[in-house]
């Protein structure tokens, strides 16, 4: 297994959000995590990435054999974990290219590799921007500075393409996107699908799953995975809502 989560129990300000969650994701797979608002989908993403403000009461999360929950956020990233943020923050005055270079330098240094030369990085960044339909001057602009919602989402995918993580969590990569932008984001994800890489896509809507076909779909409810199934599960949710698929489930 690439990602193994066992009995993960997490509280935010004293309230249990995740309660004994188990999840396995094998290398090469794409899993979708769905669930109603407030089910704890983003909490799972943030806890795995190491954001502050979450209290892990029980359980563990392993990436390969590494115990993620004991690691600093940057160490998790250096181990290959990437989170595409639901609401990416602005960093004024720091160009996208400068940000990418700094991140790549840090990741490569952690892996014992020499820094990527500037020309190679620029070439790769330009190509990735083109794939995502982003304008040529995009790399010079400040990180997320004045970006539209769609540009921010695409910028997350741009970073993902260049940083080449092994395990990717996409937290609502589709929210606020029109169909064209959604297709571009999906194309970015599909471009990176490989036997040694896995994805967890968090979404409300089955729409993105038309373009990135998942191997498994999970429904988060009551703090744990209440229902799992093949890609068709997403269609059932669309047709009948969460109530229909959760009928008779443990929660």
């Amino acid at each position, binding site marked *: 297994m690439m990602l193994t989560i066992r009995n993960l129990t997490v509280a935010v300000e004293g309230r249990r959000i995740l309660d004994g969650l188990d999840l396995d994701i094998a290398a090469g797979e794409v899993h979708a995590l769905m669930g109603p608002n407030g089910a704890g989908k983003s909490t799972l993403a943030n806890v795995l*990435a*190491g*954001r*502050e403000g979450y209290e892990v009461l029980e359980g563990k999360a392993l990436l390969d054999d590494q115990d993620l929950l004991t690691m*600093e*956020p*940057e160490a*998790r*990233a*250096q181990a290959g974990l*990437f*989170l595409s*943020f639901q609401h*990416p*923050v602005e*960093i*004024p*005055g*720091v160009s996208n290219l*400068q*940000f990418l270079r*700094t*991140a790549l330098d*840090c*990741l490569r240094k*952690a892996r014992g590799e020499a820094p990527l030369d500037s020309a190679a990085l620029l070439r790769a960044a330009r190509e990735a921007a083109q794939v995502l339909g982003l304008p040529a001057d995009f790399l010079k602009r*400040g*990180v997320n500075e004045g970006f539209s919602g769609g540009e921010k989402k695409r910028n997350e995918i741009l*970073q993902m393409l260049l*940083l080449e993580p092994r395990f990717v969590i996409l937290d609502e990569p589709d929210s606020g996107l029109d169909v064209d932008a959604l297709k571009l984001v999906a194309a970015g994800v599909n471009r990176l699908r490989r036997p040694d890489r896995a994805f967890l896509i968090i979404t409300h809507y089955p729409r993105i799953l038309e373009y990135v076909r998942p191997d498994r779909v999970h429904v988060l409810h009551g703090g744990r995975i209440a229902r799992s199934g093949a890609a068709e599960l997403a269609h059932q949710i669309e047709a009948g809502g969460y109530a229909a698929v959760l009928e008779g489930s443990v929660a």
Partner: protein
Amino acid sequence: MSTTELDAALSQAYEAGFVTDIETETLPPGLDEQVIEYISAKKNEPEFLRQWRLDAFRRWQTMKEPHWAHVRYEPIDYQGLIYYAAPKRRSETEIDPKLLETYEKLGVPVHERAALAGVAVDAVFDSVSVLTTFKDKLSEAGVIFCPISEAVQKYPELVQKYLGSVVPPGDNFFAALNSAVFSDGSFVYIPKGVRCPLELSTYFRINTARTGQFERTLIIADEGSYVSYLEGCTAPMRDEHQLHAAVVELIALEGAEIRYSTVQNWYPGDEEGRGGVYNFVTKRGLCAGRGAKISWTQVETGSAITWKYPSVILKGDDSVGEFYSVALTRGRQQADTGTKMIHLGRNTRSTIVSKGIAAGHSQNAYRGLVRINPGASGARNYTQCDSLLIGPHCGAHTFPYIESRNPRAIVEHEASTSRVSEEQLFYCRQRGIDPERAVALIVGGFCKDVFQKLPLEFAVEAGKLLEVSLEGSVG
């Protein structure tokens, strides 16, 4: 990242804090007319200057130390300071290798073959200038770049004409003190129509304990000339405070341009506020002629207390004044810095961009005056004033003063205060960037507008200085 981690990331050793073990000639502490006579005689000064100093001293004795700035400090014992300290010369021509070593250690290019070949350096150690590079190359272009003590001997008429013409001895308490006891500093004259072929730079070093440094810089750009000048400053780590009260005067005649950049890294004191330099400086430029331009750029990371307002008097019609500033305070540092733009001529323009960054328990204030006199029709000012707070214990303050006496002038002011947010840090760390580099990256982005104004070589240096200042041991 928690606040304690942030604080740790921001505290670091001061790299320029070593002491040079060198024999010095010093006066005993204390200040009276005899001290001034001694300094004047030591420098073999003409009578006008001796008298000028004594007048300034008498003036100073009637003045009171100003306390309107947003800073707090223990009273300064002016009789406990040393007013003259100079490394002993071995001979007339030879420079003590220990001095060269000191500057090399600080990364100052004091050898003419040095990598920064486009830069001429004047190195001032305590009270005197110890060497100046590339004098020959400069004199070919007719440029004068020498210690001001030498200019007094060689070009007394220029010194007498311009010294005190922009900052008169009675301008303020510290300017009066400086006028009485200034020991050395740099003198620059760029002749008509000459574009100075090198970047000029002065490097100030306080070494001796309990010594005040009172340098005086005078730059004259004659009609249609251009010069870019940079000063750098460091001092050893000492438990007691050191006083630095400099005066800088710039004169740009018709069509001339002066770009003056400062990278100030005086010893800031320790985390508890022990030691550190009191930096009380008067800097002012006069755009004397039509179309003259003066641009101040400063990167201030050092000093326990900074009291400094590089200003421009826009006298010539169509003249331009600029002030670009980055002031970083951490630990117990206090900075009250800004500028004054005095618009006298028609269609004069000024731009102010100030970036204050406060961390630790520091206090960081911007204080700026924009004055438009009745005759300054068509004058324009644009001011942008941003503060960035790191952690919960620091303070940022903005004191803008706008006095417009001409209805046809346009004055714009924008201000913002923001914090390095947990969100930004987490975002960077999620991409694999360690917290120290993340803070440096965020702060660097905040300062971008100002760094772009520095000469290229120094923009890199300033970026590094900021990074070093933000660097530390994160647990």
